């Protein structure tokens, strides 16, 4: 093997992303499809692939499996497509190989992943290319006309105009189609959007320029109109890419949600099925580490469940035969058989989904800054153009009636001037103002590990003035951590036992001890602990029955090696190390901070104290959380919700803006505007800062566009505009707006304090 050195290394070789340690237990075989060449293909979402080393490791590692013919990782989207000879290997081998390499992988439901290529984006790029091609080539004919003014004969000038027309007419009609279509859609419902003046300007400019060329006139605006379309399409494409990013993120999450389950058939065989195919009465096998996809009742087995995603409670709960299990809980220790009582769409999750939907409807009413500007802009521009036409046509007559000397102008000149107004005020800068800023801002946050799902999300985030936090998994890490001081030898000895268990307290012990080997003959005694020869680790009653009970209410494990007195390990779901700092930073930015959790009073109060939050609520249900957000909104506040659990998802959707950590459940990530990676919360502060800075840039850009129009429109109305000035003004205003947006990229030092 050429990369023997790499073989032992786990995860991203550049260390850009931590290696994933949870083995994906869902069987992806339900998502395998046969492709056109008769190969089995599987689409996977790979977590943690960040660099060229990852590409080589993943693709190389999979191609080394027998029968794999193709493995291609898309680093931008994190999607991996694997194709293999049917029968050569099972789908599970592919995910197992990825787990061995240290990457988390989850299968995609191909039904959700079909539209992988962004056709609309490609079409926009094509139109953008055509407009750019036309603009540049026409400029080649326009520059001689401008600079040869006076020396060039009308015959040469008209020839150059005709050649320009030859390029401009088909190019403009093709490139402007998105604007025509959108304008037509708006007009049909008797509304006017930004595309109405654009379409009008394109059509009128082309018509007037052709007429001018036909009568060998001086001015033709073929250069201006193609350049205008070029700039507008850049803005349109950037905007599209942002929206597409948001849509893809949402779709990816949806595709991931369709997890598989293992169904026990009547003959005892176990089959992998997609969760939407589960029916009431089915018997599902839930291995340790699996999440229950639907509601059900435990039929066989005895285990412990982690309900933190549903209730915010950190302590695992015991479950035996007859225990009701709700969708979303995680089975921790033993495999159990579940009898399904509700299909996926009727499960407890479905009620949450309904709440999420209601929340999102409220958010759809948000109007973006650029759209607000457009609503003001459209009527003004149309009246100005109409005023220009009427003014030039009847102005001289009116002046004469008042006793002034004035020469009549013909309708042609009046129309030409009116069109000049439409061209010069055309919203190039306005169209670029918001998308250019948002692309730069989301790009900058992305590098910090913050995924912003849409351009509006940034605008909404900039407005927030109340931050509402969830406790478990958001303010805290959501996992217990060893808090008692123990000597290193005891810790290592206890961890050797803990390594065979999936119980959260065992995992925390292993994490504290670091890497090492498991004790040889360690076995888990269900519901009690782990034993290996004379050594025991587990409940007090199991490991150290004689030890005195210390009732401080903390989560605990006892360890006895049969020689020395038993040792107690205490655990707590510790507040993230930078939580207090983050909350202070948010306060400094004028925000009120609240904590609302479904967990017990004592746990919430302790976390609130440690993080420095005065306003807190414990024992809140999902609807209590949405009610609190609704109350805040009624007060005229703009709440930011930060949460990770399934019980937070409705609140995340209902808040003005929402954020969830990368460890959150898919449903919560889908309902959030931003998702931040990493151990800390401080990324939140940076997101708020960048959002505020982005909003300031957008407002500056809009003001600049207005200023530009205030200067340029009177020039055009007075008939002083030439194609040269139009081209210069349009390109320079677009450049200034873009440069202003780029300032966000470099302004990092001033932002983060």
């Amino acid at each position: 093997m050429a990369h023997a050195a790499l073989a032992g290394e786990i995860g991203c070789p550049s260390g850009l992303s931590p290696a994933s340690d949870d083995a994906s237990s869902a069987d992806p075989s339900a998502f395998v499809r046969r492709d056109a060449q008769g190969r089995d293909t599987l689409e996977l979402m790979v977590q943690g692939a960040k660099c060229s080393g990852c590409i080589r490791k993943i693709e190389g590692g999979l191609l080394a499996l027998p029968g794999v013919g193709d493995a291609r990782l898309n680093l931008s989207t994190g999607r991996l497509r694997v194709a293999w000879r049917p029968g050569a290997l099972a789908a599970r081998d592919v995910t197992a190989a990825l787990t061995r390499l240290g990457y988390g992988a989850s299968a995609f439901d191909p039904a959700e992943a079909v539209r992988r290529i962004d056709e609309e984006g490609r079409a926009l790029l094509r139109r953008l290319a055509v407009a750019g091609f036309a603009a540049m080539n026409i400029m080649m004919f326009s520059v001689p006309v401008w600079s040869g003014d006076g020396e060039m004969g009308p015959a040469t000038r008209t020839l150059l105009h005709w050649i320009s027309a030859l390029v401009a007419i088909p190019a403009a009609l093709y490139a402007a189609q998105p604007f025509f279509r959108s304008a037509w859609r708006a007009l049909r419902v008797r509304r006017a959007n930004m595309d109405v003046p654009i379409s009008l300007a394109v059509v009128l400019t082309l018509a007037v320029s052709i007429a001018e060329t036909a009568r060998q006139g001086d001015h033709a605006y073929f250069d201006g109109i193609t350049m205008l379309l070029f700039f507008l399409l850049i803005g349109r494409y950037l905007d599209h890419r942002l929206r597409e990013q948001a849509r893809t993120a949402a779709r990816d999450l949806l595709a991931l949600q369709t997890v598989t389950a293992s169904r026990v058939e009547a003959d005892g065989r176990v089959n992998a099925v997609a969760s939407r195919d589960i029916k009431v009465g089915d018997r599902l096998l839930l291995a340790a580490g699996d999440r229950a996809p639907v509601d059900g009742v435990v039929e066989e087995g005895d285990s412990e469940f982690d309900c933190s995603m549903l209730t915010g409670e950190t302590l695992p709960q015991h479950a035996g035969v007859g225990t009701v299990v709700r969708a979303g809980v995680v089975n921790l220790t033993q495999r159990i058989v579940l009898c399904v009582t509700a299909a996926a769409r009727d499960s407890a999750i479905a009620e949450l989904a309904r709440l999420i939907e209601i929340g999102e409807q409220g958010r759809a009413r948000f109007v973006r800054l650029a759209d607000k500007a457009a609503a003001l802009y459209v009527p003004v521009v149309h009246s100005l153009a109409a005023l220009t036409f009427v003014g030039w046509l009847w102005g001289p007559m009116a002046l004469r009636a008042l006793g002034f000397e004035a020469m009549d102008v013909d309708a042609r000149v009046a129309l030409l001037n009116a069109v000049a107004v439409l061209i010069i005020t055309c919203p190039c800068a306005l169209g670029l103002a918001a998308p250019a800023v948002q692309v730069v801002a989301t790009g900058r946050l992305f590098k910090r590990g913050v995924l912003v799902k849409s351009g509006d999300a940034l605008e909404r985030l900039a407005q927030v003035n109340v931050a509402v936090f969830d406790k478990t998994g958001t303010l805290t890490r959501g996992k217990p951590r060893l808090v008692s001081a123990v000597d290193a030898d005891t810790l290592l000895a206890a961890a050797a036992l803990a390594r065979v268990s999936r119980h959260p307290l065992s995992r925390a012990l292993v994490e504290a001890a670091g890497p090492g080997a498991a004790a040889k003959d360690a076995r888990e005694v269900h519901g009690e602990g782990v034993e290996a020869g004379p050594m025991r680790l587990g409940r007090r009653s199991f490991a150290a029955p004689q030890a005195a009970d210390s009732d401080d209410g903390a989560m605990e494990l006892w360890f006895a090696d049969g020689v020395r007195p038993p040792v107690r390990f205490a655990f707590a779901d510790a507040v993230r190390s930078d939580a207090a700092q983050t909350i202070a930073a948010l306060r400094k930015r004028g925000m009120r901070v609240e904590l609302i959790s479904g967990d017990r009073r004592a746990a919430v109060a302790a976390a609130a104290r440690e993080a420095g939050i005065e306003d807190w609520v414990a024992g809140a249900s999902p609807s209590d959380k949405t009610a609190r957000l609704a109350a805040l909104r009624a007060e005229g506040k703009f709440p930011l919700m930060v949460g990770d659990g399934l019980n937070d998802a409705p609140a995340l959707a209902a808040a003005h803006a929402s954020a969830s950590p990368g460890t959150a459940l898919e449903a919560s990530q889908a309902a959030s505007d931003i998702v931040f990676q990493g151990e800390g919360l401080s990324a939140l502060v940076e997101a708020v800062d960048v959002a505020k800075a982005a909003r300031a840039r957008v407002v500056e850009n809009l003001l600049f566009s207005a200023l530009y129009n205030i200067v340029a429109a009177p020039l055009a109305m007075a008939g002083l505009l030439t194609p040269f000035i139009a081209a210069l003004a349009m390109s320079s205003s677009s450049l200034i707006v873009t440069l202003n947006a780029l300032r966000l990229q470099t302004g990092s030092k001033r932002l983060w304090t």
Partner: protein
Amino acid sequence: MDLMVFLIPAALFLALLGLGAFFWSLSAGQYDDLDGAAHRILIDEEDDA
């Protein structure tokens, strides 16, 4: 002046060639994974024996 008869079509033809090349690269999927393309150039040719 006569020269323009050749130069203008030649210029337009060259520009169209560029446009055609862009269209081809777009439909060939070269813009689908911009991050991956940037990293793939760092991967050495495989020389497994």
